[in-house]
């Protein structure tokens, strides 16, 4: 029990180590839900806990897989931790419609394995899939690698069961593709990071697993080539495009230096940018033809300097490991300051270049991300955390993003880290309205306090 408390205290990164006094961790223990009676009895646990905490004004922080990157599930002061991890049952799956209903504590990778057996896939995929839980994914509106093809969780989540601060259970767990009856409240819980209610069950639409997957890793000489390649890919690959990721030369170097077994497929030459394209379709030969034609055409037009096409699943996994392993490599390289911004695609890389010239030799600035969605993961890798370096990065990175009318958090959420910075991406009127909704749904402010909304508004 002590070891677990310790893990829960220190899980999140090393930038903001919150070693707080955790007095109480409540793990919701759920057995198999076979009967309605049992089902009714289990979610009463979360409901009862919140009802009690609300009556005593005890703050609560919900926890899932603890893979968040903005401190959204870190207890800040004396919050009671409510861990959803034991609620990991898959409740039902409709093989015709692909609609899955499961509890919030199901680990994403486990759901993926289950669906794989049934011939379906999850509409989202992220590097943290081995630990992150679907409740957390929904609560943070996680993006990931396949958003360019399947869209965001706002589109794929069909229903949610959530518990409000006062213990009221909102059963909005529909399995309907279309339902225009009143205000669609489930959207309030998707992305509000546990500040409006605790998500306990999710119903999600899963796409069928298509047999033909192709992955290519391409080398580009500059960022504008990457951009033009994206335009061409959307046009020429259209409906089979399932991922479009980019990483700069510095990211590739980091991965090959720090990740075991990772090697650069273009070992003989150094390139400035790399793009990973994945296509998913139903016809192996026609997809491969389409992809090859697109790649060869792009090569002739000098959009690509070089490229490799995976010939089997193993090679495809190797290419993905390079992209997905950047976070791991960053952790091994030392300390890292992580930023996740959404900027108009044409300006995306300028932020990396400006940050690089600002910090000079003091840090290794790398940029990579979901180019297909205009999402840049800017990471500053240093040997040790240093306030001086931080002052050079913030608030510059937020101001820069704000000037371009971008989002200071494309997919990672706001959590604790960026709560006070929300004004860089939202107007005062909008944030006021958010606060009004918060006051309505959680008048005692017990749900995940100090997060999401700026302290100036909520105190």
């Amino acid at each position, binding site marked *: 029990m002590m070891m677990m408390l310790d893990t829960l205290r220190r899980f999140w990164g090393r930038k903001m180590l919150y070693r707080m006094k955790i007095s109480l961790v409540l793990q919701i223990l759920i057995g198999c839900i076979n009967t309605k009676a049992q089902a009714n009895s289990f979610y009463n646990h979360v409901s009862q806990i919140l009802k009690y905490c609300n009556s005593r004004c005890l703050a609560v922080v919900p926890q899932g897989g603890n893979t968040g990157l903005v401190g959204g599930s870190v207890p800040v002061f004396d919050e009671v931790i409510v861990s959803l991890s034991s609620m990991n049952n898959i409740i039902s799956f409709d093989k015709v419609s692909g609609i899955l209903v499961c509890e919030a504590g199901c680990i994403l990778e486990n759901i993926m394995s289950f669906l794989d057996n049934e011939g379906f896939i999850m509409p989202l995929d992220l590097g943290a899939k081995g630990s992150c839980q679907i409740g957390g994914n929904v609560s943070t509106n996680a993006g990931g690698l396949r958003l360019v093809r399947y869209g965001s969780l706002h589109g794929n989540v069909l229903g949610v069961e959530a518990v409000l601060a006062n213990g009221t259970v909102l059963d909005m767990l529909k399995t309907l593709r279309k339902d225009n009856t009143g205000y669609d409240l489930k959207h309030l819980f998707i992305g509000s990071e546990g500040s409006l209610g605790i998500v306990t069950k999710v119903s999600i639409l899963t796409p069928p697993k298509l*047999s033909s997957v192709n992955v290519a890793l391409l080398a580009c000489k500059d960022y504008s080539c990457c951009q033009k390649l994206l335009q061409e890919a959307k046009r020429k690959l259209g409906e089979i495009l399932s991922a479009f990721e980019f990483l700069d030369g510095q990211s590739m170097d980091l991965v090959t230096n720090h990740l075991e077994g990772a090697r650069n497929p273009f070992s003989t030459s150094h390139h400035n940018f790399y793009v990973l394209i994945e296509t998913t379709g139903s016809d*192996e030969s026609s997809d491969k033809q389409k992809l090859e034609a697109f*790649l060869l055409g792009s090569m002739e037009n000098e959009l690509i300097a*070089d490229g490799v*096409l995976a010939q089997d699943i193993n*090679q495809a996994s190797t290419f993905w490991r390079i992209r997905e392993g950047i976070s791991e490599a960053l952790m091994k390289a030392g300390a890292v300051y992580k930023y996740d911004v959404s900027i108009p695609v044409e300006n995306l890389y300028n932020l990396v270049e400006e940050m690089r010239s600002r910090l000079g030799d003091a840090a290794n600035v790398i940029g990579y991300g979901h180019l297909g969605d205009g999402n840049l993961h800017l990471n500053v890798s240093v040997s040790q955390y240093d306030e001086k370096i931080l002052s050079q990065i913030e608030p510059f990175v937020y101001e820069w993003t704000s000037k371009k009318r971008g989002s200071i958090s494309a997919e990672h959420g706001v959590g604790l880290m960026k709560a006070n910075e929300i004004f860089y991406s939202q107007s005062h009127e909008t944030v006021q309205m958010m606060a009004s909704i918060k006051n309505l749904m959680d008048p005692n402010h017990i749900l995940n306090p100090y997060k999401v909304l700026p302290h100036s508004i909520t105190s």
Partner: protein
Amino acid sequence: MKIMVTVKRVIDYAVKIRVKPDKTGVVTQNVKMSMNPFCEIALEEALRIRESGLASEVVAVSMGPSQCVDTLRTGLAMGADRGIHVEANDSMYPLFVAKILKKLVEIEKPGLLILGKQAIDDDCNQTGQMVAGLLNWPQGTFASKVVLDKEKQVATVDREVDDGIETLCLNLPAVITTDLRLNQPRYATLPNIMKAKSKPIKKFTPKELNVDIKPDLEIVEVTEPPKRKSGVLVFSVDELIEKLKHEANVI
């Protein structure tokens, strides 16, 4: 000197294999097929030998249905110069492959024949040995290192065997089968994929080569191996001995 390499189209190594409900084989419908990993290594070795100047041409050979051309295209994209497709719709057992290879060797006259040590679908590990026997050529199987001497016309092969590494010296022409640690195969790069489109693939049929491939083996049944049972906790040495004696029957 010409090098001939065989490449087999098999179910991709990373796919979870399922047995067909009628137990006549495994499910291959809608399942990803790729080049046998050992064949990739064989082709890579041939390419490296050519690149070091000790060979002039690498010919890739595949036998089976029309989709084998895809596997040959991958081989050509890796760098092979030409492809040969022997079209046959029946199962290609090692003896038939060996007999057909003998005929192709008589036509092409390569100085070296490199194969993967086994295919990951049938795990036979027989073709290389059989063709060496049919051709009366020396063989170096499970190669983990190959060094060619053009002048002396010999190949020095390190073989991975149970007691360690055995080094053999073979007179060319010879047959070599490759093991995992021989090399790391290259990726198919776009410029090479482009070049591969214009490389020729010659077609043959077993009939044209005068080889009878009527199967003399019949697959009676294919079943999954028994699922692993969970372990049992024992609480005393006596209990352990009792279980080993009467349940596991090992003492």
